[in-house]
């Protein structure tokens, strides 16, 4: 059974959701390539009316911020 925790992204590679962290109006979603765990990327999950969409982050600073959230959540847990 394939569920929503696997997603094919723009590079046609299949990624698994390894974590989600709510922040402000959306949620940061952390993907790891199922063939290469070093292949990491982050998206924002937002709700637009009835749709749920994934969009990229605004800039590298926001990527750093999202990575900090990931480290803090998993090292302090």
């Amino acid at each position, binding site marked *: *059974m*394939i*569920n*929503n*925790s*696997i*997603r094919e*992204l*723009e*590079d046609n590679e299949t990624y*698994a*959701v*390894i*974590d*989600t962290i709510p922040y402000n109006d959306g*949620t940061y*979603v*952390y993907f*790891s390539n*199922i063939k290469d*765990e*070093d*292949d*990491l*990327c*982050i*998206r924002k*999950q937002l709700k637009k009316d009835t*749709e*749920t*969409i*994934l*969009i*990229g*982050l*605004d*800039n*590298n*600073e*926001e*990527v*750093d*911020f*999202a*990575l*900090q959230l*990931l*480290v803090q959540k*998993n*090292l302090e847990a």
Partner: protein
Amino acid sequence: MNNQNGISDENVQVTTVDEVVENTVPEMENSVNTPHDFSKIQELVDQLESKIQQIRGQGPSLELASVYQKSVQDGSKRQVVAGELYVGKNPTLAKFVEKSRKSVVQKVKNSLNDTVTFNQENFVGEPAFEKKDNIIRTDRFGEDKFPLTELDEVELEEPKSSLPDLSQTAQIAISRPPLKPESIFDDEPIIGEEKELAETIGEGESQAELYQNRGRAV
């Protein structure tokens, strides 16, 4: 100096095998009491090998440049998803997720540096220039360059008695109303004053009366 990924090498803390050897060998030399204490030497050698294995096990740091590209540039197009994404419940996938998450978190921790912390402060709107402003003020008005105590001790010289007191002259000049342009024509009939006198005396007076009254007024 930046590496090929655009990440500052100065901010990435990497412990190399050479550093471990440099730090451990002196410790070994100091700990061994006699040259024949082989058991102690062997114990320290084992510790050294353990540390080396530990470092090798961490592997290389995460390629942050690739994460930036995938997260910002590749994610510029929005994707509609059915329902909310969540961490998978599939047993096989769950194992991968757990393993991958631990690995990624450790590598991200190794790759991030102090600059990221600064960026985080900026991202949540913390003031970033307060410290810089203080530095500028210190440089411009610091005690080393412009001590205020020296400025307070400076006294102005008294004006010499042989010279006119220019300060009083200046006060008189200031209190006096500005000269009217007509005043330089004292010997000539003054049109402006004529009008004022005519208003005071009333219209219909003769020119002679006008000048006569003007003389009284003066």
